[in-house]
């Protein structure tokens, strides 16, 4: 990488800020019915918000979208073993906020990743990291995440969502559910996922 140090770093810095604010449009604050809180992502399908199973223990949740609008949501599908839940939100204007969803399988070890979520109650805080090992159903990340990042957006350098962070496994290490797994979760029939504990609700 041959970059003029000052302008190269400033460009990267500015680009990360731009990426964060773009991704933040798609990130919601999710409050579960039993006092749990985490993040969610407005998916690229009408009325759909993706989050982690463990963020929404009950059948309903409360979703705050960019701009502060609070909407009520129903859990329409969950897979505890994948730590995924799908929420239906009945509201106008979500289309403009939907995330661009990318291909987690195209990632390479070392690729730059940014997680945007609501860690410790802060809205839309970015964390910078890389992909730590070859992409699989679950992505291993070299990144520092905190409680509240769960269910948020993990994006590649182009701002496309390629995973949903769900677990911190050590200092500077975290796991995310890949979009490969999210696609399987969304498109499978219930019986195909039965062995993986998929529940219709």
């Amino acid at each position, binding site marked *: 990488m041959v970059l003029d140090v000052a302008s190269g770093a400033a460009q990267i810095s500015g680009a990360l800020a731009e990426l964060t604010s773009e991704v933040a449009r798609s990130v919601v604050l999710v409050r579960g019915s039993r006092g749990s809180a985490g993040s969610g992502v407005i998916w690229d399908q009408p009325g759909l918000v993706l989050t982690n199973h463990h963020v929404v223990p009950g059948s309903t949740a409360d979703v705050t979208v960019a701009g502060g609008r609070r909407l009520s949501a129903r859990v329409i599908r969950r897979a505890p073993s994948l730590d995924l839940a799908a929420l239906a939100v009945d509201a106008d204007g979500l289309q403009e906020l939907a995330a661009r969803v990318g291909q987690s399988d195209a990632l390479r*070890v070392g690729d730059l990743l940014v997680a945007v979520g609501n860690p410790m109650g802060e809205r839309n805080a970015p964390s910078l990291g890389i992909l730590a090992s070859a992409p699989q159903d679950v992505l291993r990340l070299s990144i520092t995440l905190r409680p509240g990042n769960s269910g948020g957006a993990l994006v590649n350098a182009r701002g496309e969502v390629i995973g949903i962070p769900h677990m911190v496994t050590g200092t500077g290490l975290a796991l995310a559910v890949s979009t490969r797994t999210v696609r399987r979760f969304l498109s499978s029939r219930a019986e195909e996922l039965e062995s993986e504990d998929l529940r219709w609700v």
Partner: protein
Amino acid sequence: MYATAVQPYTCSMPLSDSASGVLASLSDDLAHAVSLAAQSVVAVHGRRRFPASGLAWRDDQVVTASHVLERDTDLSITTPDGAQHQARLVGRDPSSDLAVLSLPSATLTKVQRAEPSATQPGQLALAVGRPGTPEPIASFGAISSLGGAWRTAQGGLLDAYIRADVALLPGLSGGALVDVNGRLLGMLSAHIAGGDPVAIPAASIDGIVDRLVSGVSLRRAFLGISTQPVELQEVLRQRLGIQQTLGLMLLGLEPGAPAEGAGLLLGDIILSIGGRAIEDGEALQMALGPAAVGHPTQIQLIRGGALLHVDVVPAPRPN
């Protein structure tokens, strides 16, 4: 069916081309750095748990962390192409957590090194390992500090270190700390600094590898003394004509050890060993490296207010 019944949104708000380009290019650079470094990072099989990592030091030689080898025989490595090769332990130095393996049957891609003088705190760094996985593993951070002589958790003395805030993924020990071009800065060990991500710089590894390969003992020199730094009175320094403000007073002498044999006494204040001023315990340790073993060495000391010279032959440190 929920998801298959509806058409996806067409997304209208992509990131600007310039921002996307800058970040995509950084992402490419990082992925390329990992991939370049990984060509010279092998998996090392020498323990019951999952494999650790190693660095292709020469065409037929791998450097790894000593602590990942639970045995001296039945060792093997997996090269980046997936082939497994028998490896022979050439030597190991647990105190600096380094081991050298030779591979008669493999031709390795030697590590490419970074220019040491260009390395600075704040630069981005990647940790790259290969714990038996087909693809390498990597973590990312910045160089936190570069330091001089230090003592490892195992009591070894190394002349330099590189500390980086990279996550130590399981199996990264023996792996590479590299710059953003994928060039080697040093070998990572989760062991030598009590779990902190610290790398032994490539230049330091060279010296240890040379000694391990030539079969020279890495046991440190031993005098059999315990000491404490003491201040040297101004009036005493003036009388003796010395500049040094601190010396090491002998508080203990091990029976039968070289210092006692040479006639040192409790209360003697050591000023220098082999011409090197000794003002603290670190300096004493530096003077007692493996090279000092078996060589007559002059100790300058103060006894009863007078300067005295004593010759001593340091022994290898007992295990």
